[in-house]
């Protein structure tokens, strides 16, 4: 069941990214940048923050309905706090695409890979074989992280040249190693985008 859902999601994202073409415009990497800052809720309610900088490298415009399709690379940092459990932090690089319609409505998806490190936010102890107790400082673990996300939002620049937008982004993280295998986590992100450099 889990395996089927996973394959379906990966497949859907790739299909989603493959659609759309027509006029293609190559953009020099670094020509423009978008900055994202958003609330990151692991399991929705474990609060945190995500920041991401996105550098588009390709723009396709579908002439029929003037729909833009951007491809971009991004790098981001996120942090959240699950009370009496752990603080999760991560650094992530992603590849994504987003379609921006004439009215500014935006749809996107991305796949990323990164490093996840969690710290327990309660005291952690080790007990030796002879019963001696020691406290472990900054206890937690590092994991490899894979991230899949979908995105909906509004890009105000498209319609009114205001360099802002908003987005909502359900995310699925896969973290390994976890116990004897790996662990999926879900998160919901919502925030604003700001164009810090416009080509």
């Amino acid at each position, binding site marked *: 069941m889990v395996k089927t859902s996973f394959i379906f999601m990966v497949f859907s994202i790739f299909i989603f990214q493959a659609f759309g073409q027509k006029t293609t415009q190559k953009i020099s990497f670094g020509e423009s940048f978008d900055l994202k800052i958003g609330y990151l809720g692991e399991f929705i309610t474990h609060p945190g923050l995500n920041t991401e900088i996105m550098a588009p490298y390709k723009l396709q415009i579908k002439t029929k309905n003037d729909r833009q399709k951007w491809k971009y690379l991004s790098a981001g940092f996120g942090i959240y706090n699950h009370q009496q459990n752990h603080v999760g932090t991560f650094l992530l690089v992603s590849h994504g695409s987003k379609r921006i319609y004439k009215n500014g409505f935006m749809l996107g998806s991305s796949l990323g890979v990164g490093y996840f490190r969690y710290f327990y936010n309660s005291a*952690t102890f080790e007990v030796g074989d002879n019963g001696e107790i020691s406290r472990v400082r900054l206890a937690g673990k590092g994991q490899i992280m894979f991230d899949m996300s979908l995105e909906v939002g509004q890009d105000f620049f498209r319609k009114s040249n205001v360099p802002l937008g908003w987005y909502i982004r359900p995310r699925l993280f896969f973290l390994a190693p976890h116990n004897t*295998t790996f662990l999926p986590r879900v998160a919901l992100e919502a925030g604003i985008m700001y164009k810090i450099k416009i080509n």
Partner: protein
Amino acid sequence: MKIRIKIVYVVSLTAILFTGCDRDDFLVDDFLDDHFYLRNAGADMPVTVQGNFKDKTLVLFLQGGPLGGSQILAYSSIFNRLEKEFAVAYWDQRATGESKGNFSKDLLIRDQYVDDLDKLVKLIQHRYGKDTKIFLMGISWGGMLGTSYLIRHHGNHPVKGWIEINGGHDWPLIRRTSYLKLRSIADQQISIGNSINEWTQLKEVADKFDTSRIDLDYVVEYYQHVLKAEKILEKDGVVSYSVEVDKPWKAFFNSPTNSLTSIFGDILARPNSHVWSHLMTDTYVSDNLSLINIPYLFLWGDMDIRVPDTLAYRAYEKISTPEADKKLVIFPNTMHELPGYAPEQFYLEVVSFINKHN
């Protein structure tokens, strides 16, 4: 300006990271409210401790499975009621619930779980004092774990009493008796006219059960029928489960547990399959029950098909606990998850046992 932003960033990050880090104020007005992790052999296992600690009595709960963790029980009405009498420690065992870490599947064996429990008992004594009166309470797999611990560390543990609830401490005996219980309940239900077709089919399953088969797949398939039988008993109103979740919104979204990762973790690691596959022919506990001599309370459901009450009767005879310090209670019309089927009687028996022996 830039420096100010950096300072705000670093301070915010540090505050988030260390908010809730070790507190020394876990005991307020004789009430324990604590949370910590035990690290052992690659696993980091969370422990929530809550409840009345006026008499320094603590009940360490051993979950079933091993699956699902036990921290979520801190939100159940039954345990919240117990917390008014004693402190209760909820421990998410290795590879269950919110426990984390990185270790080999080879460590999903009883001996490792017993070692984890031994370390936890020592840590509890260190954290709350050597004079802490520890009672173990285990259900299903927790029964196997607690009993194994008491045998392995007999004469050298601080446990004051053991409450075993439908404990699966003897798998060969479960295999030899579960189908008999299923058949007996099927006969009984057919005789009173309840779901006759379903029970007739289940009786056939019981009749065909091959006690010599010890492969896990065969047993798992049989247990699918047992679960079906339990559902029929509930549907026909023979048994009724009545546990409430206190503060369900908080339990689901803002507690130390995360239901989704707990479920995924269980499905992916399957700690119960690994543990039980090593115990199919194991008689370590049944061979050594006589090493247990501490106060012992057996709580069993008369309609428990998964772990029939034969185990309780046998163990009651075998342990060395003096007659005055052991008690066997069979609850009518209750199944495997006993506390939920008879919350009031369960509460009264537990409180009475602990008050007598602490």
